[in-house]
């Protein structure tokens, strides 16, 4: 094909700004692909593309509302992800010395910047103790809206399972890792 018909050549002739924009997009797409970092609006698609093994045991997070186990797959995929992911972040923070897991990344990415800017970036990116402290109340309200009923008790347990003949079997008694009892108004 004649170079005049190439996409980038046609784009360059039409608009230098758009050409530069598309060139930058291609550059960063290649960069993030190489680094395997997902950054919006670039798309690094390598999920379900690696060899996987089945672990011998897994641990699930189970939510008990008023003593009844919440059936997670009954929720929408987004609600399920929101509840599980936010709680996992909160639980990680609570059990891992109350430090934001992004702290080493912030330090690494800002290491060449002046101290003033490093501090400012850390303040904006990292969560504070107060940020995390407010989470249980938010979770309670979020679940109340989904559950359509008043929640008296919210208990979150870790349930260990083993794979026996590719079937999941509960191993031991679940361990309560979070409990919230709503005070009577």
């Amino acid at each position, binding site marked *: 094909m004649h170079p005049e018909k190439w*996409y980038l050549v*046609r*784009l360059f002739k*039409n*608009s230098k700004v*758009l050409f530069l924009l*598309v060139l930058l997009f291609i550059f960063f797409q290649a960069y993030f*692909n190489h680094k395997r*970092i*997902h*950054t*919006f*609006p*670039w*798309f690094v*698609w*390598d*999920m*379900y*593309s*690696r*060899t*996987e*093994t*089945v*672990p011998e045991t*897994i641990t699930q997070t189970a939510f008990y509302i008023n003593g009844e186990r919440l*059936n*997670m*797959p009954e929720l*929408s*995929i*987004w*609600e*399920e*992800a*929101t509840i599980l*992911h*936010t709680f*996992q*972040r909160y639980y990680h923070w609570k059990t891992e010395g109350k430090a934001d897991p*992004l702290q080493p*990344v912030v330090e690494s990415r800002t290491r060449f910047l002046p101290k003033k800017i490093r501090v400012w970036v850390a303040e*904006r*990116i990292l*969560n504070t103790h*107060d*940020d*995390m*402290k*407010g*989470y249980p109340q*938010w979770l309670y309200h*979020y679940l109340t*809206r*989904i559950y359509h009923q008043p929640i008296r008790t919210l208990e979150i347990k870790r*349930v260990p*399972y083993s794979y026996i003949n*590719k079937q*999941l079997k509960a191993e031991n008694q679940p361990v309560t890792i979070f409990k919230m009892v709503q005070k009577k108004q």
Partner: protein
Amino acid sequence: MIANLSIHNRSRWESLLIGYFLVLLAFRIYSSAMLVFAHGQTFHSPDLDYTFWFSHLLGFPDVIIRHYWLCLLVDAGVAGAAVMALFDKKNRAVWMATLMLFFFIQRITLESFSASHTKSIACIFVALFPLCFRKEERFALMMEGARYFLLFILLISAWNKWANGALLSEGNFANMLINQHSDLAVYAPQHISYRIAQWLTETPLFADIAYWLLFLTQASFIIGVFTRRADQWLFIALIAFAITTYLVMRIYNFDLLVLGWVLLYIPKKK
């Protein structure tokens, strides 16, 4: 033979794309994937994403999530701009730019405060971007770029399956399904996704065949690099891909279909 799905009229194609966007938006509302539902969340999770970092440095997600009326305004902005873009054809480019701005603010804020980053949302932005251009030539060039992007992401996904050894690893897809559905195994073994997955895991040969079919579907997009003649078939393949991954793996790939619409637009030759 199926009827020719290609659309030659720009305005009609744009209306259909925006209509599909609105259908997905209705599903997002139903799924609580809107800011008003996440309002008041106290901590954010930008992860390693640079765009999320820049957004938090600017500070807008942190301000919005604290104020209910701002959450409502952004959500309404997304829906309102999409509806206006659908009906006000004369000013469509302006409404599309407005929609992209509101949608960007909404997604960054929501995904950061829900600790759930959706990769495929990028496809929506790439698909909507050409609609911000009034001039036919620029619109066509951006559409062409969006089409290349679609081909690229599907081909790179197929390539990764090959290069990472997942494709030739016997029983690998069965393992993926077991890991994917550990929640369904406990909570809802009667769920259709789990029943299909269980059948596949019990017969690993079929699971391997299914994974090869997935790979071949993605790899078939290589045709699109050389010709546009197969585009409507690629679009059908993309629909099949989105439906089967939802059914078998419970993965939401319908955002990818928004970008898939670029395969159907073929402008009339002057």
